[in-house]
């Protein structure tokens, strides 16, 4: 385990402990002001956890809306509806054994489902290409190398693992070479082609190569067959059956751009509906909280 992994683990556990402690304090504290500030700890830890999960935009939205908006509203409500001096009465609760048992059972069943019954890791899709009697299977994984990356999926990290499986007995395949390329157009419409290749001798079953430091963009990759030694000239691409206009995977630093594309594309109607709903909620809240004029 490298240093960065150790740091990542430590950061996660610190944040997890802060979040759980805050949540328990919200549930059990006798003082409502203390509950409100424990909620602050939970919301901030959640924002940091989103950052750990590389969901940068969500982390920023969490801090802005939850911590800056909702929590301030809640603290306002606490201050407006209670005399802070009678702290003992402010956060009454009826802690019954029934509620506690129900929550414990819920937690237990959730833990059992999470740890033992469900299979969370996603297998990669297989793409089969044929070349001279060999059926070659292509797979792509996320940077961790164990979770599949769907065709056309988005890799948030700048590394992907590409796998080439070759069945036995393979003929005319001494060496396979993987070529991945990305075509981006700059402002003048000029095409920039970035190309990364990896090469490995296959060991009867296939090979896995890890491409690192990939620039952002849409990527496609193919397998090249190298016959008769390792010379560059003899590499020839194995034709794929998939259409060539769709990317095999995309690389994106952070999720802001893909989320923006989704919000402006697939979710445009939902986005507009939510904005109308927010307006309605604003008007409704102002209407409910207005001072009634008695005549």
């Amino acid at each position, binding site marked *: 385990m490298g240093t960065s992994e150790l740091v990542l683990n430590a950061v996660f556990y610190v944040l997890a402990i802060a979040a759980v402690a805050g949540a328990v304090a919200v549930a059990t504290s006798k003082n409502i002001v203390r509950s409100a500030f424990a909620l602050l700890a939970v919301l901030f830890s959640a924002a940091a956890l989103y950052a750990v999960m590389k969901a940068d935009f969500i982390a920023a939205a969490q801090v802005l809306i939850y911590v800056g908006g909702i929590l301030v509203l809640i603290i306002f409500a606490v201050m407006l509806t209670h005399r802070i001096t009678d702290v003992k009465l402010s956060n009454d609760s009826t802690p019954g054994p029934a509620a506690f048992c129900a929550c414990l059972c819920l937690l237990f069943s959730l833990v059992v489902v*999470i740890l033992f019954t469900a299979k*969370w890791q996603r297998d990669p899709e297989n793409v089969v290409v044929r070349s001279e009697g060999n059926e070659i299977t292509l797979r792509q994984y996320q940077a961790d190398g164990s979770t599949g990356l769907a065709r056309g999926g988005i890799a948030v990290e700048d590394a992907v693992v590409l796998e080439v499986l070759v069945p036995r007995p393979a003929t005319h395949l001494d060496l396979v070479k993987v070529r991945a390329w990305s075509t981006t157009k700059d402002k003048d419409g000029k095409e920039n082609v970035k190309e990364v290749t990896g090469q490995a001798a296959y060991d009867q079953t296939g090979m896995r190569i890890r491409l690192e430091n990939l620039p952002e963009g849409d990527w496609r990759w193919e397998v090249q067959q190298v016959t008769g030694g390792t010379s560059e000239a003899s590499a020839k691409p194995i034709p794929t059956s998939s259409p060539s206009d769709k990317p095999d995977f995309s690389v994106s630093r952070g999720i802001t751009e893909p989320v923006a594309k989704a919000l402006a594309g697939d979710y445009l109607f939902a986005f507009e509906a939510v904005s109308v709903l927010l307006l309605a909620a604003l008007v409704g809240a102002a209407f409910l909280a207005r001072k009634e004029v008695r005549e």
Partner: protein
Amino acid sequence: MIFSRHPLEHMLLLSAVIFCCGVYTILTRKNAVSILMGVELVLNAANINFVAFSQYTRIGGMHGNVFTIFVILLAAAEAAVALAIIIGIYQNFGKVDVDQADNMKE
């Protein structure tokens, strides 16, 4: 279990704990503001799940992240309306105990 080997399971366990704390808060509190805090805990647990599934499994691209944004927005709307109602209850009853606010009009 180490986080970097099983990140998804860790996030799911964490959100399960937060979710149960939220449910406990909703079940036991009498104060309407505290119940609202419990609802926020439950929503945050769901958000952590959405983002974890979206980031660590990539089932369906960015859908989980977009859902989280919608949940956060709806939570904001819900909090604004709920707090307006709570202040209305406080003006009518002088307290915000949900056990005693049981009639629509005094």
